[in-house]
């Protein structure tokens, strides 16, 4: 059912796209018809795959680093009070700086290779992961903590055996957001300065007015994003099976 719905949505979007092209008569170099983009997808398959591989690597490495840093920060803040008092305001304030504004600086510092893109993706993933996980670590059921105290638990044990597992559903929420925004970081990094990747390919195609190729790259990027999200969602669901879900539409 979900698959059918997905296909129906894709077909519907393509139909709207075609209708817009036919009705408005917009020039092809601005909005090419689906047919041209499909041709670009097939004809440039090898080229697209190569650049997609680079972008995917940036996203995955960024996810890895961002998640590791976010989880470590949240744990440090939960385990050690001074860490929270000093780190939390810095993290919150840092969110006022648009990550995009950092991209040129990162390129300046880290060069044109994978480095700045991974750094961008890491930065963009770090905050949702750290804040969601820390929030989860803070909101442990006080009843469980009371129980642990009467049972004579050590503080470290409480963190490991109660706070940490209780915060996993929150961490999963943060990771879902992280996976959804990770491609943004990678592509912005590529726009600022790159020699490969889908973002680089798009800029390159734009300069040569190869609009169908631009759209083809965009579609590949969207597919990567959706597939990553669905995979992460499935994995996370399996990792926290006790987390009950209810459907607000069925209330």
């Amino acid at each position, binding site marked *: 059912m979900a698959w059918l719905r997905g296909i129906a949505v894709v077909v519907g979007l393509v139909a709207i796209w075609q209708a817009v092209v036919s009705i408005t008569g917009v020039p092809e170099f601005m909005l090419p018809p689906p047919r041209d983009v499909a041709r670009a997808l097939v004809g440039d398959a090898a080229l697209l795959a190569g650049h997609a591989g680079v972008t995917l690597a940036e996203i995955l490495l960024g996810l890895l680093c961002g998640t590791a840093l976010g989880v470590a920060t949240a744990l440090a803040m939960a385990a050690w009070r001074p860490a929270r008092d000093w780190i939390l305001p810095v993290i919150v304030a840092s969110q006022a700086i648009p990550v995009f504004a950092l991209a040129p600086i990162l390129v300046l510092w880290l060069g044109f290779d994978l480095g700045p893109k991974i750094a961008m993706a890491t930065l963009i993933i770090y905050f949702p992961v750290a804040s969601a996980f820390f929030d989860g670590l803070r909101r442990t059921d006080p009843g469980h903590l*009371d*129980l*642990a*105290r009467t*049972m*004579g638990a*050590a503080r470290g044990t409480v963190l490991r055996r109660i706070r940490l*597992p209780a915060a996993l559903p929150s961490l999963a929420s943060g990771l879902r957001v992280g996976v959804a925004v990770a491609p943004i970081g990678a592509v912005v990094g590529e726009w600022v300065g790159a020699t490969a990747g889908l973002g680089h390919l798009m800029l390159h195609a734009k300069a040569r007015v190869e609009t169908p190729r631009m759209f083809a790259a965009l579609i590949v990027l969207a597919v990567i994003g959706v597939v990553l999200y669905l995979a992460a969602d499935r994995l996370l669901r399996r990792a926290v*099976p006790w*987390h009950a879900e209810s459907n607000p539409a069925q209330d």
Partner: protein
Amino acid sequence: MSVVPGASAPSIATISAPPFGLKVHAAGLDFGGAPLFEALDLALAAGSWTCLLGPSGVGKTSLLRLIAGLVAPWPGTTVECGDGGPLRGRIAYMAQQDLLLPWLPALDNVLFGARLRRERIDGTARERARWLLARVGLGEKLAALPAALSGGQRQRVALARTLFEAQPLVLMDEPFSALDAITRHQLQALAAELLHGATVLHVTHDPWEALRLADRLYVMAGAPARLRAAVVLDGEPPRDVGAPALARRHAELLALLANGKREAA
């Protein structure tokens, strides 16, 4: 106590050490800026079951939490064990909510105290946890996550976890009040049987429950709250709630509770 097939005594006993009495003296506690009680005394006899009755919000739970070391009382408050030993590490606490950890199967929830204390969990400990779950009627549900259990079953697991702790002092805060009548009746009998010999302080708002289980019961009333004269009950718990003598006691108790409420108002 009833004999269960396959139950070999010492490793399976529900109390690890001889029970001790408890004396709470000159207890005072604030709640939301106002004194909940002050200069309150309470004595629990070793190995006896004491129920604390009273209207909601009077401070029963707070008194229990004070003894459990979960809230800081006024200076001058003393809580002394009858045998002169420390209280820390010798209590088991059971709340109205089952407080099961949702990610652990029933068996691991029963073993949770041992995990928290970093005790080695060997075959004997596992065997005891299994035996306790079987005694509360969940021998088939060892691997079930709490979400897969009914409210009554979850509270049974919580009872098994409390019993697994095998502590000489057991503090229970309305442990059966969220259950349906039948389940409540069964669990009361089970608790009376399995906690026999331990010193128990049991907070409840149900006079029938107190009459069924307690050796001695206090009514807590007023603001700041005081403990009213103890009612001493004879006969072995769990008592038959159909007995006429108990019905008379129930009527007296209701009058006492209503009186306390009027005083507070």
